[in-house]
């Protein structure tokens, strides 16, 4: 029964992607403008680090090409969150709650977290991942470092854990909209925290920063740790921590969501 449930959700999600594509084709001008903005954002990120490395040769022992790979992976992961979660869902959640527009979603025979967070993919972001993959490929080609198959597997595993942690953080922050009415900043707060993932993690290796970004908001597992596992050091402790935190954060977020959604009362007539 559980496997059929997962299959059903996958089939429904494919329909959502199809609707997203149709919507994209109907509003083609908006799509191209949005795609341009996504590409400009990526360009800005690359330009920013080009300026940094125009003034220094390494950042916490990371070379420009290692950081380029990190940025590429960060772009892929970030665009994943923007497209799958943020633009047409979490960003609009506070206003939907305020206006009572969540009612029609809650009465559907689907998991509420799935329906409120994943049901409107923003296809332009998926296309915007392509420059990220290009940067990863380019950065990798410039790094003179042999990479083993196991390192690649560990890196992929930690990236998946990082995405799980990122999803939990975003949904966790956004779910507070059920408590704080019209707090439009909540989903943005989650997205802003993900931006800390664009820096190499040794930058956060002292004192309070270490505690914050390794345990409380562990965004270093989105891109920096996976990059480090590929090109710098295979630290088993990071792998264990990534898996543990992914499970912990998802458990907390599911529990938080279940409790907070019970507080929802419709504002519509």
């Amino acid at each position, binding site marked *: 029964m559980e496997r059929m449930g997962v299959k059903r959700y996958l089939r429904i999600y494919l329909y959502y992607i199809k609707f997203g594509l149709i919507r994209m084709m109907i509003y083609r001008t908006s799509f191209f403008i949005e795609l341009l903005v996504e590409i400009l954002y990526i360009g800005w990120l690359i*330009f920013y680090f080009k300026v940094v490395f125009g003034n220094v040769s390494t950042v916490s022992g990371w070379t420009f090409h290692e950081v380029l790979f990190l940025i590429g992976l960060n772009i892929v992961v970030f665009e994943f969150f923007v497209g799958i979660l943020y633009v047409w869902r979490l960003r609009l959640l506070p206003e939907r709650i305020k206006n009572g527009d969540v009612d029609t979603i809650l009465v559907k025979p689907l998991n509420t977290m799935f329906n409120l967070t994943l049901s409107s993919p923003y296809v332009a972001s998926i296309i915007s991942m392509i420059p990220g993959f290009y940067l990863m490929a380019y950065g990798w080609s410039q790094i003179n470092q042999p990479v083993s198959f196991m390192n690649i597997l560990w890196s992929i595993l930690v990236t998946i854990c990082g995405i799980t942690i990122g999803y939990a953080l975003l949904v966790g922050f956004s779910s507070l909209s059920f408590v704080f009415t019209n707090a439009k900043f909540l989903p943005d*707060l989650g997205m802003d925290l993900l931006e800390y993932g664009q820096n190499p993690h040794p930058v956060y290796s002292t004192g309070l920063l270490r505690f914050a970004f390794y345990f409380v908001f562990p965004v270093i597992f989105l891109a920096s740790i996976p990059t480090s596992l590929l090109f710098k050091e295979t630290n088993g402790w990071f792998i264990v921590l990534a898996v543990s935190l992914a499970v912990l954060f998802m458990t907390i977020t599911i529990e938080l969501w279940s409790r907070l959604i019970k507080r929802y009362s419709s504002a519509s007539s």
Partner: protein
Amino acid sequence: MQKYLGIFRNYFSSSLEYRSNLIGLIIKEMIGMGVILVLWVTIYQSEETVGGYSLIKTVHYYVLVPFIGIITQVQLSNELGKEIKDGLLSSHLTKPYKLWIGSFMRVLAEKIFTLSMVLPLYILLIIGLDRFFDASLLSMRGVLLGLMICLAGFILHFFLDLAITWLAFWTDDVWSFKHFKDIIFGVLGGVSFPFEFLTPGLQALFHLLPFKFMYYIPLSYMLGDRGADHLVMDLLGITVWIGIMISIAFALWQMGVRKYGAYGG
């Protein structure tokens, strides 16, 4: 004039009602500041200066960026653009006031509210920084000159954002324009880095554009890099750009409102 003061009072009250959004703004700006500062503090562990900036100057720069943004930033396009898309502009068109002045009052009310809440925090932050570094970079003269440019930058930004808002007559959503503006200011306005971190060629190019007046120029005055001898030329430059933005905004309004149609119940 009374009707516009009434609009101002309404939006000021509305800002008070949704105080949590201000807390969110403060946290958001602190996060943004933090992302950049942690990186630069790490860089300065191995460098004395970067682009002629010492650590204390770089820290002051990035700490002041959000404060400057509170004065110069305008986020009208998101709200008003949505109203155009949803057909709610009709309610504004039937009212006995000019929409652009009403929008200016709306922005001004929200800004004054935000500033009144944030200013004491910033004063404490700057005092804390001066004590931490045992040095003071800011002078009263520099701060006042910087604030003067900020006010002019705010007016420039208002008309720029107004022009962006009217693009909603032709597009499905204006959310992407806000994002586009953030990127432009990040690169060309001095939000992400001072112009001194760039090559001379790029510095010259960026100085030709109006975005520097939103962040980089006010910050230069506050940090003592520009003085009263630059003021007249800078104010002249802003005035020219304000004139250009006003022309673009009103041209877009004239074209857009003729095309506008509100459909549905």
